[in-house]
């Protein structure tokens, strides 16, 4: 418990001392969140400075913070050991089409296995872009950390959030890009 107080104190002093990070959760909001229960508060009160910035600006960052925000998000991206950005498309297929893992189909059209949603852009026949290093890198980075390209978007930051390992993201990249992947050879399911 003493450790908890110490962490709380550090969290409180952090923005005040060191570098001034954006703060969204005021003491009043903190009290409200704590009333929602321990588990709820544990997650919400651990809001990161980038999440705070998106909250403050209601998901539309003004030009003056955009540059440094994108730079910081780019710095967060990590790559698979060995640097292979395209893994196994079969494993990627399972991740893409599983609700509790990638859940990609819920928002994007393109999968031949699940009807796609329209929250995100259609990825139908995504492999038409080819498999150049630039395309692989862009695809990998968007999945690892979409905020590096689309600040504050709803898409999960799969790599940064710890939802998928770098190698798993490479598998999804393969599912999208490999010319022999079912994603590119079979018709996408649509509503």
């Amino acid at each position: 418990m003493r450790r908890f107080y110490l962490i709380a104190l550090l969290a409180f002093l952090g923005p005040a001392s060191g570098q001034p990070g954006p703060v969204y959760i005021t003491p009043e909001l903190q009290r409200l969140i704590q009333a929602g229960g321990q588990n709820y508060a544990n997650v919400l009160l651990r809001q990161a400075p980038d999440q705070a910035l998106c909250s403050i600006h209601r998901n539309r960052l003004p030009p003056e913070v955009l540059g440094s925000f994108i730079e910081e998000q780019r710095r967060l991206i990590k790559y698979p050991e060995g640097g292979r950005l395209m893994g196994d498309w079969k494993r990627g297929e399972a991740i893409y089409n599983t609700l509790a893992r990638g859940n990609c189909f819920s928002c994007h059209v393109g999968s031949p296995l699940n009807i796609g949603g329209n929250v995100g852009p259609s990825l139908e026949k995504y492999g038409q872009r080819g498999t150049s290093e630039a395309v692989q890198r862009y695809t990998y980075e968007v999945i690892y950390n979409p905020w590096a390209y689309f600040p504050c978007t709803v898409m999960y930051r799969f790599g940064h959030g710890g939802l998928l390992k770098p190698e798993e993201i490479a598998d999804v990249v393969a599912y999208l890009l490999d010319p022999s992947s079912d994603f590119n050879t079979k018709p996408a399911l649509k509503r």
Partner: protein
Amino acid sequence: MGRFWRLLAALALALGALGASAQEEDDPVKEAEKQKKQLLEQSGGILPSDLYVQQGEELFKAKRGPKQASLEACDFGRGPGRLEGVVGRLPRYFFDTRRVEDLDSRIRTCMIRLQGFRPEEIRRSEVVAIAFYIASLSNEQTMYVRPLMPQEKKLYELGEKLFYLRAGPRDMGCASCHVTYVGRRAGVLPYSDLLGDKRVASHWPAFRYSNDQAWTMADRIRACYANLGMPAPDFYSEPIIALTLFMNAQARGARMDLPGFIR
């Protein structure tokens, strides 16, 4: 209770037949209306929510709890025992508890204060049924939530902040879907327009026919968190009341459809 079971049997048959219906409407409101009409025809004029209403009425009027009292003296904001239209005025500030309360938490307060239940004895299913009964007495009335008291204004502001707050491993926040992607689909249902469409907050509590669930706004909010892998705020807790106050105030002027009938 005989009537209750007869109704239940008729409904079970009718609900079973629902799945076999023809093609689905694209607009979820129209689709729900179609399903409701079909269900009413097949069940002989009753809806599943009618059962909850009836159960809730029995619970509301029965002398229960350590104090052997009914809930008829409960004040939902228009004075003890006055239930008509109260759902359209909640959440609001109550002087007796010195708190802003929503429908769920007010029912709980009265079960504790009037009937003498201990908080841990209160069954969620009973609160939901009572909420359905009270909601049925607000049907077709006007939504009139307007934060005027300082406590209400404060909680409204905090609810609005909470609505835009992003946190957790999935960067979850209500507004990222219900403002930015209104009308788009991730799964079966398009995201409702909580800020622009007054019908959205004015149909709770509601029966969800595709899942056979009776939900209040609290259940809806908690499911939003859970769908994105977040721990949900406790039932009857302030974050739920703050979000409900913020959303209900957006629906001011709407004609309430209660209990709601939705997918």
